């Protein structure tokens, strides 16, 4: 029971099933163009999901990521419109994201507030700031060299550059999470914060760092988003936080912390993306698409709980 039927393995299998079904039923699905696009379309969600995985494993959450993305996009637009060099704008935008994350982290760790409440607040706050920075305007005409970086594939592969960045970061996060003491500390914090504290883990400092990483990555995703669409707007990426959290949960990370693997999350992101792509190719309406994704999410949260309820019953009480 234990190893083979782990939820993240199941999601991986489901992903393969969707891919196979797509290749068989839809001629436009398994083409290089389509897959490359579908991957590119997931870029921002996938990037943010990396940081979110670490947060959720440590039993925290950051709902402000989409707003940080929007603020970063607005900032890129406003500074570019003001004549600043894009090479300077990008680090400024990413740095702003780090500051946003720092504010979240300080509120959570220094004041001891629940991250759900704090980041619902900053979700509204950062989006508001994005509108202050750029208003209702849309700024376009970004340098083609940079927009190409956000859209084009790495030469000779169907992998868009942002996804290549994601792969590198994912490898790093995978190693940190599953093969270092720091990674184990995250699981410990998520499973039993007090025990982790007494075991000598610097809980607050680590959480603060996670929020800073989350803000930084979200702001970087904002830069990618802006360049990919070639349009900076304050409302960019509204609602993305839910897609990210959906992917993380679908990937088998426990919302109560302490459980989950990065592999599962990556499979979750891909599953949501490919399923949506396939449903669209089949002319399934938007409403049905949301229903399918929603059901999948509920099943993913429900199944492990049911299994943990059923398993002891089958074995007899411990």
């Amino acid at each position: 029971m234990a190893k083979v039927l782990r939820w993240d393995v199941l999601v991986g299998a489901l992903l393969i099933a969707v891919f196979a079904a797509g290749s068989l039923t839809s001629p436009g699905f398994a083409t290089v163009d389509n897959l490359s696009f579908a991957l590119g379309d997931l870029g921002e969600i996938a990037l943010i999901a990396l940081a979110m995985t670490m947060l959720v494993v440590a039993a925290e959450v950051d709902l402000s990521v989409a707003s940080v993305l929007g603020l970063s996009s607005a900032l890129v637009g406003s500074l570019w419109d003001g004549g600043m060099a894009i090479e300077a704008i990008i680090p400024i935008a990413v740095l702003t994201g780090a500051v946003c994350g720092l504010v979240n982290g300080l509120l959570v760790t220094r004041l001891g507030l629940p991250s759900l409440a704090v980041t619902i607040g900053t979700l509204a706050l950062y989006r508001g700031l994005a509108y202050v920075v750029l208003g209702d305007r849309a700024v376009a005409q970004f340098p083609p060299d940079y927009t190409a970086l956000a859209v084009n594939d790495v030469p000779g592969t169907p992998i868009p550059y942002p996804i290549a960045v994601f792969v590198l970061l994912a490898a790093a996060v995978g190693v940190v999470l599953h093969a270092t003491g720091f990674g184990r500390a995250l699981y410990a914090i998520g499973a039993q914060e007090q025990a982790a504290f007494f075991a000598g883990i610097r809980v607050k400092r680590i959480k603060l760092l996670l929020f800073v990483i989350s803000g930084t990555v979200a702001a970087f995703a904002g830069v990618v988003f802006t360049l990919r669409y070639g349009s900076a707007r304050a409302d960019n990426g509204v609602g993305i936080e839910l897609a990210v959290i959906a992917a993380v949960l679908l990937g088998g990370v426990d919302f109560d912390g302490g459980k989950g693997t990065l592999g599962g999350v990556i499979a979750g992101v891909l599953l949501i993306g490919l399923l949506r792509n396939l449903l669209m190719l089949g002319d399934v309406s938007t409403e049905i698409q949301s229903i399918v994704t929603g059901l999948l999410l509920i099943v993913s949260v429900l199944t492990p709980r049911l299994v943990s309820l059923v398993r002891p019953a089958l074995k007899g009480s411990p």
Partner: protein
Amino acid sequence: MTPMRLTAVTALLALGVAACSGTTKSTVTSAPAPAPASSSSAAKADPNAPIKQGLKLAFLPKAINNPYETIVDNAGIEAAKEYQGEAKEVGPSDASASSQISYINTLTQQGHDAILIAANDANAVCGPLQQARAKGIKIVAYDSDAAPECRDLFINQASSEEVGRSQVKLLAGMIGNKGDIAILSATANATNQNTWIKFMKDELGKPEYKDMKLVKVAYGDDDDQKSFTQTQGLLQAYPNLKGIISPTTVGISAAARYISGSKYKGKVVLTGLGTPNQMRQFVKDKTVEKFALWNPKDLGYLASYAAAALVSGQITGAEGETFKAGKLGERTIGKQGEVILGPPFTFDAANIDQFDY
């Protein structure tokens, strides 16, 4: 702490260097404009080519549940049947800037002959539209334009200039070219409305309107409640107000609702852009005498025929080319690939019952 400080200093230095020598807006905009798509310059139009049979078209509205766009798209889908084509409507449930992108990709993969799009963001849809064109798919924008270099044609519901000027003429005719007037617009940043208002102001500058004075442009943000209270505010602040122009369907119906139940009914003339179904009761109870709008069915119909003419090679999108748009007759392509539907249509008590949208 020292290595961190060192990193910070290095980063700041790098930032400074980048700021001085990097790619800025001016270096990009001074670069030569990209050449027009090769497909349109290489191909030659054959006005006598027959419309191809079995064309596959797709309408991609701003959002799928927008009633106005549904009327436009359904008319376009009906038109496709006239020339034995096949058309469908797909689209996102929200009108955000980026939500149309995946649909463009999907339609490209599905191998349509043409994509007709009401763009949520002129630039955000540009890249994917270019990719679709590279695969030989024709792009027709309607209702809301995409950047001109990313589409073959834009079907404009009415020229902005004509909309603006005709609103002033319509109101002037009803108040005898005399008195204080106000405008109730959508948001302060709305592109359409601001262009129209610019032409309204220009028209008001003409000598025949010297006795008409624009006292205020108010913004109802295309929100029913806000437009309602803005109307109330206007009428209280300017007791001598003779007329209001509301060039937005939300604004005009909210204003009409307020006026119809107030002491200003019959004293203040309201006109603007509205749909017949929204305005019917206010025309019947004589709150509003005349208002205008283009016919959304004709917009979809024209877009559908334009796409068919493009795919069949009758036109390439160049200025001066003409094509036959079914019952609407012959149309000519104007500057920058624009085809104009025609002057806005004026509705009044005599004709409003012939329309249902």
